[in-house]
Each structure stands twice: as C-alpha cells, then as structure tokens.
C-alpha cells in the first residue's frame, strides 16, 4: 500500500510520458493510471507532451491505414529487381504447373 502511494506521489515526467505512450497499446494498471493522471494534473509540460503523443498516435494510425500504398516511403521497386522478380515468379509458376 505504501509502495503504491509512494509510486503515485513520486512519479516523474519521464515515467509519466512512457506510461502515456504505452497506454495506446496496452492497458495500464490502476496504480499506473492514477499516478499518470495525478502527475499530469500538476505538470503542464506533461499535459503538453500528452497532446503531442495524442497527435503522434493519430498520425501513426493514418500511416498504418496507408501502409499498403504508403506515400511515407518515396521509392518504388527498382527496375532490375522488378525484372528479376517477374522472372522468378514466372519460373515458379511454370514449375508448379509441371508438378501438378
């Protein structure tokens, strides 16, 4: 009991920030939630940081949605790799048919 209270009262910005980052991915324990919320009540920097994390999480969600055709990477399959891959696929398909 004392240990939990001590954790809540002495939580620092770095740990509060880590918990806020983690929260979007995994549920926090009750003590962690209380400690994080209590810390943010009194720490303006962490409230601002929490807003940054919220925006980042939202941006990542878009990146995830767009993953299949992401404009995040400005590159295409190089021409030689494209030719090699097409050839390999063709050969694999032909050998598959021979085996059937």
């Amino acid at each position, binding site marked *: 009991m004392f240990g939990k209270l001590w954790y809540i009262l002495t939580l620092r*910005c770095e740990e509060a*920030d880590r918990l806020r980052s983690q929260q979007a*991915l995994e549920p926090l324990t009750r003590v962690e939630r209380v400690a994080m919320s209590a810390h943010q009540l009194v720490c303006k920097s*962490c409230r601002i940081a929490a807003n940054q994390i919220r925006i*980042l999480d939202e*941006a990542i969600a878009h990146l995830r949605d767009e993953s299949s055709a*992401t404009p*995040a990477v400005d590159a295409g399959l190089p021409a030689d790799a494209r030719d090699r891959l097409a050839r390999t696929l063709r050969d694999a398909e032909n050998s598959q048919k021979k*085996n059937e």
Partner: protein
Amino acid sequence: MESARMHGTNEAAARPLAVVGVNNGCLIAAIFGRNSRAGVPFGDAKSAGRDYNQLAECNAVSEPAIDNRDGTRRKTGISARDADKASDAARGLSDPARWVELHGDAMYRFALLRISSAELAEDAVQEAMLAALAARSTFDGRSSERTWLIGILRYKLIDLLRKRRKDRERSVSVDSNQESLFDDGIWIRRPDDWHVAGSTLESEEFQRILGECVGALPSPMREAFCLRVLDDVPSDEVCKCLDVSSTNLWTLVHRAKLRLRVCLGRRWFGNDEERSKRG
C-alpha cells in the same frame, strides 16, 4: 494481419509445399464430381471440406467437367491452366504474372518502411510473392488481393527480423546514444505545444515526413516500433522476435516515439511560419 490469420494465409505461407498440391482443388472437384472424395488426393481435411464451394465457383466460370449420369469423364475443352485462372479470377485473384506490376511498388514500400535495407526489402517481397503463389488456393476473396499479399509479406518480414536478430548478438542494447530530453526524470525544457489544422495528419506531405522520421530510427528501436506499434504484433511475440524483455520493449517503443516527436517537432511543427503556410 488479422485478415491474413483468419484466412489461413500464415499457415499456408508457412508450409508452401503442402499447399501447392491442393492448388487445383477447384479443378479436381470439377473433374471427379461433387460426391467423390477420390478427387481429393492429399487427404487434407481443409481442402476436402472446401470442394463444394470450389465446385460452385468453378461452375460459375466454366462448364461442368463431368457427366454424372453415367459417371464417365468427358473432355471439356478447357485446359488446366485456363480452369486455374478462371478459379482465381472468380475469387478476385489476378494473374500472378501481373503481381509485380500491380503490387510490387506498394509491397516494396511496405517492406522498406520496416527494414532499412533495400536489398532485404526486395528479398522479402520476392519471398512473399512466391509463398502467395504456392498458397493461392487459400485466398478466399474476403479481403483484397493486396491486403492478402501484404499480410503474407508482414509475416515474411517478422521471420526476416527474427533471423537477423539471431545472427547478431543476443542482447539488445536499449541505451543508444540518444540525446536525453530529461534530467533526472524531469523535462529539461518544456515540450512545444502542437496545433493541428484539419486534415494535416492525413496529408501526403506530413505522412512522407513521418515515414522519413520512422526510417531514421536506429535499428532496434525501429523494429520494436514497427512491429509493436505499426503492425500491432502482440508484445510477447515482439519480445521473442527481438529477444528483449517486456520492460526493454516498452523502453524501445517509448524512445522511438520520443524520437519521432523530436523529428516531427523539428521538421513539421517547429516553425510557426512554415506551419501557417501549410495550414
């Protein structure tokens, strides 16, 4: 990934040789008739259970291959290759010869975002396409062809990362030389207040910069971030894949997100004048 799992993609990708044999389940069911189990030569319960649907699909795209009244087989005039293609087309699968043209770039970009090496990204795309070719009978058309291919690629990338991790030293250092934002757990300087207008986060320019920031993450952080955050792989699987403890995983993810915030702060949110220009 969920869809890939639901559709049995991963299982199929994991044992490509086994599924090559049932590739023509549709054709086999058509040739040997609805009630015949002799037409399922591989003793695969899944393929045996599927042949009714496969037959229905076949009938929708080609004429029946058997005269059931006297049980004799007759030639239909369609080649095995045509029947195969018709079956694939009925399920929304394009000709594999066109996969490179249709999905090559998207798959390559997907891989490149997650692993820094262009060569490894090319290899992963090739392995994924070959696995998909061998397992195409498992594609049931519930997702798009690209989603299915990306699902297979995702697992190939996880395998690749796992292999690469094994080749390196076992323990991952989480203490990279990151410039710390904290002094004794307290912010050194107050973070900047970010303001986002309208659909900024969805814009191509913002997403490109975010992608570049992800690309600039150092190796273990980037892998932890991509697997756990971007691909939503469960923590225990990521820990196994990267050979890190759960605590270290969260440290890596947190540091990755901190770096992304610093990177976005510098490249997007940092300059008020620039931000107002972008709207």
